[in-house]
């Protein structure tokens, strides 16, 4: 009998017990839908987080003062302006480097006030962090040298303070000092690592001389919260980090055996760590979905065994009129495969629907990928074959006379 005729026979057999067939399929449907939806959501989340991390600035290497040790102890130390100057001169293969001093401060306009991170920095910080402006301009060298009281607001900060008014040219208070708004950053969305949407940026000199005062001075030296730089190419990131560490050790008088009192951090390292986490998570999700498919497969096997028992006389009759073992085996195998493939396709559609729903609800931009669909489809087919073989061979092995006499 050819495959098409077998599929027709299988469909008819499955239609006899519609409810049972649907319930049997449900295991596969849920398993496959879970695989498709979870993979799509996982892919979407990974893509969006990766984009955010990359949005922080490409090839970025950042130095922070102090260091967290295992166990939560913190080694305190200062990162000074002269450290920054030494790094500027000493580190090769860096395209831009900028110093930042930041503190939480209160911004006030009219009756509105917000507490945000105010970053005092220089013009090229815009490049390091790949920041884009929605309006106006960034702080400039001239602002810096003239100690101008100008501020660039993060998009959320601008919304919170001005509630729809155009902020450019207006004066706001930072703590008790008036600043003029010269620009608003474009929103980057998301958050977490140093979100720029909730920030304000002022010139570094202005910060030292007019706003932060003694808070930015330690032991008579101007200090920084961080120094960020961009390596010239992604391949240079490692080298830049090595140089930063060498120069900083030298400047802080640390021997090779001493613990570092500063932290060098690269966005690439962050991305790598993140990739590892997502890979682990994907395996984990896949394992859960795999288990549900396994359970679905066992359900199919169970029902097929019942079906073989119920149809013992039919099998006997088929054998009596000339069906071989292989023919019977094939008939029942096709039935299981049809069952799990219908379940698989329905599951793919359902999973796709869930992914679409999640995207439409704006939770995560789910990304249904072709290879996920292929994988789910072939996995369903595999489940059908694997769990169909035993019931089918049971049917095929029945002795014709015993099958015919079965009551």
């Amino acid at each position, binding site marked *: *009998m050819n495959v098409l*005729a077998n599929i027709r026979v299988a469909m*008819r057999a499955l239609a*006899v017990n519609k409810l049972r067939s649907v319930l049997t399929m449900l295991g596969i449907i849920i398993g496959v839908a879970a695989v498709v939806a979870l993979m799509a959501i996982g892919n979407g989340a990974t893509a969006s987080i990766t984009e955010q991390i990359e949005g922080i600035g490409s090839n970025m290497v950042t130095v922070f003062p102090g260091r967290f040790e295992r166990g939560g102890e913190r080694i305190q130390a200062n990162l000074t302006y002269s450290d920054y100057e030494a790094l500027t001169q000493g580190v090769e293969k860096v395209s831009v480097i900028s110093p930042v001093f930041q503190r939480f401060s209160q911004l006030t306009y009219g009756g509105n006030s917000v507490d945000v991170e105010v970053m005092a920095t220089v013009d090229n910080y815009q490049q390091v962090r790949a920041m884009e402006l929605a309006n106006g301009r960034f702080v400039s060298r001239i602002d810096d040298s003239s100690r101008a009281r100008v501020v660039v607001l993060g998009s959320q900060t601008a919304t919170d303070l001005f509630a729809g008014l155009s902020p450019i040219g207006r004066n706001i208070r930072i703590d008790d000092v008036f600043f003029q708004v010269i620009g608003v950053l474009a929103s980057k969305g998301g958050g977490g690592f140093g979100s720029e949407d909730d920030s304000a940026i002022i010139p570094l000199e202005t910060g030292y001389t007019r706003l932060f005062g003694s808070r930015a001075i330690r032991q008579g030296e101007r200090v920084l919260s961080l120094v960020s730089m961009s390596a010239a190419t992604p391949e240079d990131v490692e080298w830049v980090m090595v140089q930063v560490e060498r120069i900083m050790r030298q400047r802080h008088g640390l021997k090779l055996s001493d613990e570092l009192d500063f932290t060098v951090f690269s966005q690439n390292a962050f991305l790598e760590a993140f990739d590892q986490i997502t890979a682990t998570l994907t395996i984990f999700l896949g394992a859960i979905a795999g288990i549900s498919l396994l359970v679905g497969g066992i359900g199919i096997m169970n029902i097929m065994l019942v079906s073989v028992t119920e149809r013992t*006389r*039919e099998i*006997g*009759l*088929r*054998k*009596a*009129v*000339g*069906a*071989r*073992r*292989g*023919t019977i085996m094939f008939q029942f195998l096709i039935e299981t495969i049809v069952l799990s493939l219908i379940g698989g396709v329905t599951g793919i559609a359902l999973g796709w629907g869930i992914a679409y729903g999640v995207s439409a609800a704006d939770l995560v931009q789910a990304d249904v990928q072709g290879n996920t669909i292929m994988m789910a489809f072939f996995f369903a087919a595999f489940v059908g074959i694997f769990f169909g073989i035993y019931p089918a061979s049971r049917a095929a092995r029945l*002795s*014709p*006379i015993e099958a*015919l006499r079965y009551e």
Partner: protein
Amino acid sequence: MFSDNGVVIRIEGISKHYQMGDTTVRALDGVDLSVNSGEMLSIMGPSGSGKSTLMAILGCLDKPSHGRYRLDGEYVEGMSDARLAEIRGKKIGFVFQQFNLLARTSALENVMLPLTYAGVRGREKQSHAREALDLVGLADRMDHKPGELSGGQQQRVAIARALVNRPAILLADEPTGALDSKTGDELMELFGKLHRDRGITLCVVTHDPEVAALTQRVVRLHDGNVLEDKSK
């Protein structure tokens, strides 16, 4: 089909023993029988006489413990399962007490089933099946499903199915057992007609003396042995 001087079935010293716990049940104990082409015989005997076992062995549904069986010129013992399946499909036509039709499947498709397994395809398959249904007088019921047919009609579909591959022999196991006496008589009439007009070789297993009376030869079994083999 008429090889071996018209002998379709020849069995020699056929035994079938079952082990039931500690005792050996001798369902058949050295049976000899030969059936010529075009014969119509009945195998009779009380329950437990071994007639169903004999029928199963004649139909290649079961294998004997001992003895030789030559069907249509071929020795059956030692054949592979696949070869036996082919023999069943092509050389033997079965009619069962309970019809054994596939439910939810039209009369025509039921009749086509042996052709499908024999590898007959397409138009040839259709026309053979129609012919067979026509032969049993059901040309106008081809698309009916078993549930839509009377018991007598269902059994006639089963006969058409048994005949469709032009087998060497038709084996009927209590064919009237599930039918009322009138329908049973009609069915036996059909068998008789097929035998007369088409020269079909027919072997009916029955415990009903009235059915046996309609055949020219009656073989009586008792305790796994042939008690009597009488031809009219």
